[in-house]
């Protein structure tokens, strides 16, 4: 009876428990969704770029045709130099600001940090609208600007300035993180050797932050080159890639050239993505478990200089924000500056932006709820379940791609993919459902990485212990994993909400009159010659985002109290 047959080279395969089988099915569902709503649309762009209007394969002909059109080729160059210029300004500016936050003892650090992040709450075009009020044809400071030799704000100068404003917080977040990851022991060692301040900066600080700087530069460049709202509003006759895509696809229905431009936009984003992954690996390995966090010490002159700089920057930011708010409440710029709600009434009631605003809130709500659920479930299944290795790596890979795909490109892919009559998912085209899915996919990666970080912080053996106790994984998910991760869930949800409120690039291709969202309505108002109403709506979006942030703060606090009591007990 007990004679055991030798396995004789046959590989042992463990039987899959039915609970694991369930996990595999869920993982497959996530993978399928990512294929349908991410890989499919991207493949459609690639296909479109090598086909002619009737769907025949033409190789690189569309690319040749693109470069043969001087106006289009010029846009490519315009996009590149404008993005380089904006990056060259924003990275050093944000670096000094980040340095002040991470390495000085200046007062009101929290306030400086929050004010610098405010641009994230509004669509990027808010800055463009505001600059028009400052420097436009009827701008307050138009004469000053012209005295400096800039003839008109419309075009490259406006784009660069507005982009600097809207990209600043993105660069700042990266740089603050990079500068906060300093090992105090290195500075102590340098000090013990009698190193001068400047030398410490160049031999310890800069090398420590170099990956962060590279990452911030790449991210800034990509954000600028793929941004649509700002050049649309303040670009005038200055053409860039992002506006070209829109004109080619929506205006001229030239899908093939649109796809070619989309691929140009994809290139820097892909490069950024690759560099960023590399950088992240370097950055984390730099800080060992034994590192001692750096704590700045007060130094009067330095702290004062840093405070002065931050005051200057925040003043500029508040000037941009404040002008948009001011203009939205003014009766008739620039002739009658008395207070009025005219623009709000005009926007919300007469131009029916009210409905668009409701759409925005709907989009944000479902993105923040469904998106968070999908992203967290996906991350959990990838990180914490057993078996189905290839499916796992597939989802892992797909989850990182959205980071490398600009919204404009994704939106374009959605048109190509879902507008195709033979696609069984065609019925989704122009529905709110598709807008939600597109927005979830657009911002998937950040949510996914947040969830993965939170999950990785949990003991890897929880699932093994549960299995040994014969408790199915969902029970442990519900009783342990989810409660511990709720703060991360709140973060992910907030991120989705704010971005859904302010996004333009992906959804600009996908809305119907019924599903138009507020950020798009602002563009339309601006086009219709109603910048006051556009400013008013942008302010409303910012206000809604701010309200959402505060609401999330309260939710976060409540959740913390309910689910994180065990942490306090230490």
């Amino acid at each position, binding site marked *: 009876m007990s004679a055991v047959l030798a396995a004789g080279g046959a590989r042992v395969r463990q039987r899959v428990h039915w609970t694991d089988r369930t996990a595999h099915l869920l993982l497959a569902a996530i993978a399928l969704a990512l294929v349908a709503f991410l890989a499919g649309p991207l493949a459609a762009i690639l296909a479109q770029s090598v086909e002619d209007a009737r769907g025949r394969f033409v190789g690189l002909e569309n690319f040749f045709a693109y470069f043969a059109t001087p106006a289009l080729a010029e846009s490519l160059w315009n996009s590149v130099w404008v993005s380089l210029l904006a990056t060259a300004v924003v990275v050093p500016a944000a670096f000094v600001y980040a340095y002040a936050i991470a390495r000085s003892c200046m007062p009101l650090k929290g306030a400086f940090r929050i004010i610098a992040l405010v641009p994230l709450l509004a669509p990027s075009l808010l800055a463009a609208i505001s600059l028009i009020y400052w420097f436009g044809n009827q701008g307050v400071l138009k004469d000053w600007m012209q005295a400096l030799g800039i003839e008109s704000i419309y075009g490259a100068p406006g784009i660069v300035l507005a982009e600097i404003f809207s990209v600043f917080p993105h660069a700042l977040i990266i740089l603050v993180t990079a500068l906060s990851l300093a090992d105090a022991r290195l500075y102590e060692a340098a000090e013990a050797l009698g190193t001068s301040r400047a030398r410490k900066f160049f031999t310890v600080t800069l090398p420590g932050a170099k990956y962060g700087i590279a990452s911030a530069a790449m991210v800034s460049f990509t954000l600028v080159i793929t941004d649509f709202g700002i050049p649309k509003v303040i670009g005038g006759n200055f053409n860039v890639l992002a506006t070209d895509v829109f004109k080619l696809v929506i205006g001229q229905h030239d899908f093939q050239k649109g796809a070619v431009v989309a691929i140009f936009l994809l290139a820097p984003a892909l490069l950024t993505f690759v560099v960023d992954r590399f950088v992240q690996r370097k950055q984390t390995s730099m800080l060992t478990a034994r590192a001692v966090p750096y704590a700045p010490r007060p130094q009067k002159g330095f702290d004062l200089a840093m405070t002065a700089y931050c005051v200057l920057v925040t003043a500029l930011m508040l000037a941009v924000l404040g002008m948009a708010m001011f203009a939205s409440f003014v009766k008739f710029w620039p002739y009658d500056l008395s207070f009025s709600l005219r623009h709000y009434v005009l926007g919300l009631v007469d131009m029916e932006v009210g409905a668009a605003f409701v759409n925005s809130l709907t989009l944000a709500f479902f993105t923040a709820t469904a998106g968070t659920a999908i992203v967290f479930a996906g991350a959990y299944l990838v990180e914490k379940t057993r078996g189905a290795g290839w499916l796992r790596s597939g989802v892992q890979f797909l989850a990182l791609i959205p980071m490398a795909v600009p919204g404009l490109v994704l939106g374009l892919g959605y048109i190509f993919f879902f507008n195709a009559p033979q696609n069984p998912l065609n019925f989704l085209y122009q529905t709110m459902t598709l807008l939600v899915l597109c927005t979830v996919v657009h911002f998937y990666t950040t949510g996914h990485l947040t969830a993965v970080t939170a999950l990785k912080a949990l*003991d890897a053996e929880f699932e093994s212990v549960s299995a*040994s106790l014969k408790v199915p994984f969902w029970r442990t998910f519900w009783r342990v994993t989810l409660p511990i991760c709720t703060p991360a869930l709140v973060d992910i949800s907030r991120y989705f909400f704010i971005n859904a409120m302010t996004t333009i690039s992906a959804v600009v291709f996908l809305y119907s009159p019924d599903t138009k969202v507020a950020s798009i309505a602002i563009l339309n108002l601006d086009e219709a010659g109603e910048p006051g109403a556009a400013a008013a709506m942008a302010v409303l979006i910012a206000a809604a985002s701010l309200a959402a942030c505060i609401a999330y703060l309260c939710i976060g606090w409540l959740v913390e109290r309910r689910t994180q009591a065990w942490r306090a007990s230490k």
Partner: protein
Amino acid sequence: MQAAEPFLRLEGIRKDFGAFTALRDIRLEVAQGEFVCFLGPSGCGKTTLLRIVAGLEAQTAGTIRQGGRDISALPPAERDYGIVFQSYALFPNLTVFDNVAYGLVNRRTDRAAIRSRVAELLQLVGLPESAAKYPAQLSGGQQQRIALARALATSPGLLLLDEPLSALDAIVRVHLRQEIRSLQQRLGVTTVMVTHDQEEALSMADRIVVMNHGVIDQVGTPIEVYREPATPFVADFVGKVNMLAGTVEAPGRVKVGARSFSGASCNGSPGRAVRAYLRPEDIVARPIAEGDPNVLEARIDKIEFLGSYCLVRVVAEGLGEQPLTVYLSLNYLSEQGLRAGSALKLRVLAERMRVFDS
């Protein structure tokens, strides 16, 4: 027909990670109620083997039988074991009570039964008052016991311990190892523990499985493993040892340098190069009678003070460059007025020598 089947039997277990073979031809039987330690340096495959027994890793080839059942292909949830990890893996957001009851809730609907079982287990591990606390409120040693209680809650047939003590500080560790051992003996639960700490293995196990580079070098009781190491690796890894390079002079005689030791258990043709392994305590300073064989004239090179005993490095006449390490009691050293540079006589217990081909 046959003697009772062992409770746990591993046959021809092999584990490949890509091109790397982590375990090779592992064969092992564990009797009901036995406490077995997997001992080896890090990377020897001991943890992988434990995880294969648990079903957390699938072996590439080989069979596992537990309690008369072939469990080779069963997922963890269908096997019968409780496990304690090095990190304890206590659920931090659940109270001690909920942690211990975690596996019970699934099986018994009766709340009163669960309550009394948890109380019983907490009593068993000596923490009856801690039910309402969170894990973070307990010390490392206390967390360890709760993890043990949780693993034992469902009365599994097999208890698996993965380096359960290595995260604790030395005093708690020594205390807990006796406690775990006596608990295991009281419950009679068959136990497999992974450790890299030889002292832990020697003091706790019924039998030790010494592993190296994915194979089992020796299986034996602690005394066997210590006194009669089966391979040079075992001799070297378990306890302190002097390694002397020499040659076989004749059956039972080993020549090291200019000296020859008689009474060693070695055979083979004279002139064969061998390595002789000798524990420090098998080189004694007393009693030495006139005419004893295997006596060395030695000079103290260095004394390392360890408390009541000292680790003394000596250079013995005739052994060439090879120094010896011996244990001498502090009392003996002071009685004899020995210090670095002093001369003394030492007797080698050559019958304790383990001789391996080099």
